[in-house]
């Protein structure tokens, strides 16, 4: 492909990031199979927002859509980044956890059902702090329940990224797919800057932020699995591939010895450049014995 052709392909793509959560879920599933569960007309919305001066939304920012992925039954759960920064409160957390548990139940009853999580979230919704934290724990438990039976695929496409408590759920996913625009990090750049100061982390320095949290780096360092162009058909194929890959013998989150070796290979007394991490981790050798 010539340079000109690749730019033309870039422009002719259908951007996934452009879509809202509902459109994203629909775009991933096989044509004509999408069916929303617990949709906006069921009016299950947060009771906690209005007293705090926030206009609630009828789906409370989480969209659950059942359908088929490459022919196989699947449920796609999309977090809407445009509503409250994708914050997870009581209703969103319960919607996600319940969708995953019901998928697990379908599996146990003989219908192999996979799940896809579209993770655009700043973490727990501050207005519902404790309930949000509790439901994130339920989400994680439900991921663990389902991933033993069928793949749970996480997608961090952008433009918000995945931060806070939900990155733990992202870390538990069978496979994690990112775009170059996507970001993944337990603490968001602004949080680090406000807690530790601009000298520690300058959240306005996009090159720095993406060199650490960005999709390219997360895939390079093995914390995510696939880097995909921001394009509906490219993402859909990557998701279908991940589902077809089935349940692995060991999930990333179970490979504790390798992950510990990576951490131990870093000297905390020295400033590590983002570009050094992938090389350093590739050389990190797990110690023999011990847990994990």
């Amino acid at each position, binding site marked *: 492909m010539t340079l000109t052709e690749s730019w033309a392909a870039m*422009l002719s793509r259908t*951007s996934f990031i*452009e879509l809202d959560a509902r459109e994203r879920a629909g775009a991933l599933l096989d044509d004509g199979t999408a069916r929303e569960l617990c949709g906006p007309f069921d009016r299950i919305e947060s009771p906690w927002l209005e007293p705090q001066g926030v206009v609630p939304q009828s789906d409370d920012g989480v969209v659950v859509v059942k359908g088929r992925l490459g022919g196989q039954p699947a449920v796609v759960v999309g977090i809407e980044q445009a509503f409250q920064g994708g914050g997870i409160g009581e209703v969103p957390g319960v919607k996600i956890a319940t969708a995953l548990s019901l998928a697990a139940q379908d599996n146990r009853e003989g219908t192999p059902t996979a799940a896809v999580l579209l993770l655009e979230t700043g973490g727990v919704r501050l207005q519902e702090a404790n309930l949000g934290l509790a439901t994130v724990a339920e989400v994680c438990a439900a991921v663990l329940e389902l991933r033993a039976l069928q793949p749970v695929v996480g997608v961090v496409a952008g433009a918000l990224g995945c931060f806070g408590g939900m990155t733990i759920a992202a870390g538990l996913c069978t496979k994690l797919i990112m775009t170059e625009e996507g970001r993944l990090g337990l603490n968001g750049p602004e949080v680090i800057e406000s807690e530790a100061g601009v000298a520690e982390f300058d959240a306005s320095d*996009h090159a720095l932020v993406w060199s650490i949290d960005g*999709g*390219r780096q997360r895939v390079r360092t093995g914390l995510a699995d696939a880097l995909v162009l921001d394009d509906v058909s490219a993402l859909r194929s990557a998701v279908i591939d991940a589902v077809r890959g089935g349940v692995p013998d060991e999930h990333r989150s179970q490979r504790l010895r390798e992950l510990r070796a990576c951490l131990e290979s870093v000297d905390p007394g020295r400033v590590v450049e983002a570009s050094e991490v992938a090389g350093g981790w590739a050389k990190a050798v797990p110690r023999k014995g011990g847990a994990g």
Partner: protein
Amino acid sequence: MGFANALPRDWTKRRTAKRERLEAVRPHVSGRVVNPARMRDTLQALLRPGDRVALEGDNQKQADFLAEALAGCDPDVVHDLHLLISSISLPEHLDVFERGVARRLDFAYAGPQSVRMAQLLADGKVEVGAIHTYVELYARMFVDLIPGVALLCAEQADRDGNLYTGASTEDTPTIAEAVAFSDGVTVVQVNEIVDRVPRVDIPGDWVDLVVESPRPFALEPLFTRDPRHIGQVEILMAMMTLRGIYERHEVTTLNHGIGFDTAAIELLLPTYGAELGLRGKICKHWTLNPHPTLIPAIESGWVESVHCFGGEPGMDRYVAARPDVFFTGRDGSLRSNRVLCQLAGQYAVDLFIGSSLQIDADANSSTVTEGRLSGFGGAPNMGHDPHGRRHPSPTWLGLLTGEAPIRRGRKLVVQVTQTFRTGGTPAFVETLDAVPVGQDAGMPIPPIMIYGDDVSHVVTEEGVAYLYKASGPAERRDAVAAIAGATPIGRRSDDRRVEVLRRDGLVALPEDLKVDVRRARRSLLAARSIEDLVAWSGGLYEPPARFRSW
């Protein structure tokens, strides 16, 4: 013979003074090159109390190293300077006053420093001569505010003082001319001193001293708008502007102000504009900085020429690769010139369009909204109908005014705004904030950005008001109210009145313009992200880090 008794006058005082000043700095200088470590000493030797000093600092590039050296001068040696700065952007600009190095100030814009500026005014640390528009301030440098010293900035200099300003020529030649030809002293900070400059933007003959700055001068990407932040309302207004103004008035020569409203128009040309069959009929010749959002229109063959006020970070390689469109030098890079582009924007273009933040019932428009004075910048230079124009064009003649047989055409001056700003503040108001702010600042007249009688069209999400068609002030107010939505001004209107205005052609709603509101979606934008703009440019556009999300 009374003349014979008159004392002989010395006609070369300025020239003598210049010689003495250059003599005084000699210990710090080799040839024309100042030792950067001695910059402050050089300024202390060069400057005299009360000097009028032009410090280059426009809305984009800043002579920041010289500003810092000036702010560091000993106020016992250098004091009571009169500074001319077009844009007060750096803290150092105001440190100069706080430390007593300078006392008097004439400027055009103080956006980033306006809060501190207000405090210094209140403390009596600074005396403001006047707040100008850009070209006005430069014009005065040739009349009653001739600077004795200019502190300028450029990309490169050779040892003879020939300057290469690169894409950001901007105001440097104008200030240099005012000073060099009135026996003033020009001091220029450059990013590097080279044996041979790629092209001569300012001849060394105009330059007295150059200094290599320890770091490149600051340059702000002011004209870059990320398409991701363009929403449906901006797209709707852009659709109405294209149909109701550009197509209707066959606008071929134009200037766009900065903002998401105009960026949306630029990004609709290759899609919606092409659908309407307007390519080659509108938007051919521009006075405009190299807006990244214009790339898709250029690549789709809409744009024949662009003359620029200044450069834009990240656009150098793209501009250099499109010399048929942009003004470029022998070295291939952009040549900009703010004053000439402003002049072109006044006399040679048929339309100015810009975003407003506040509009009153008579269509007076202002960007002063936060209770403080930020100044004018260049919008008023573009946003008026220049009465010095004589050449006709179909667009200009389309707005014929006056009583036959003495008639003249009119420039289109368009203001765009949503009826409510973010946070639910109405954009249409009884009294502009500019009025009390002007009073508080002791200004003799309120700081209006665009006067209502110059505004020919106002566009909101409700529709387009064709104010130039109004028969009198009452009808103008009715037309403004008709598109002012649920704001206090808009509530003065009613359906029946709007019907009459639509029938008479003073107001057009989307359906009158055959604009389908449902199509106002982001999918209509030719580029929806910075990544798309890079792709449109074939990789030539190199966005600054802060605009990258990858």
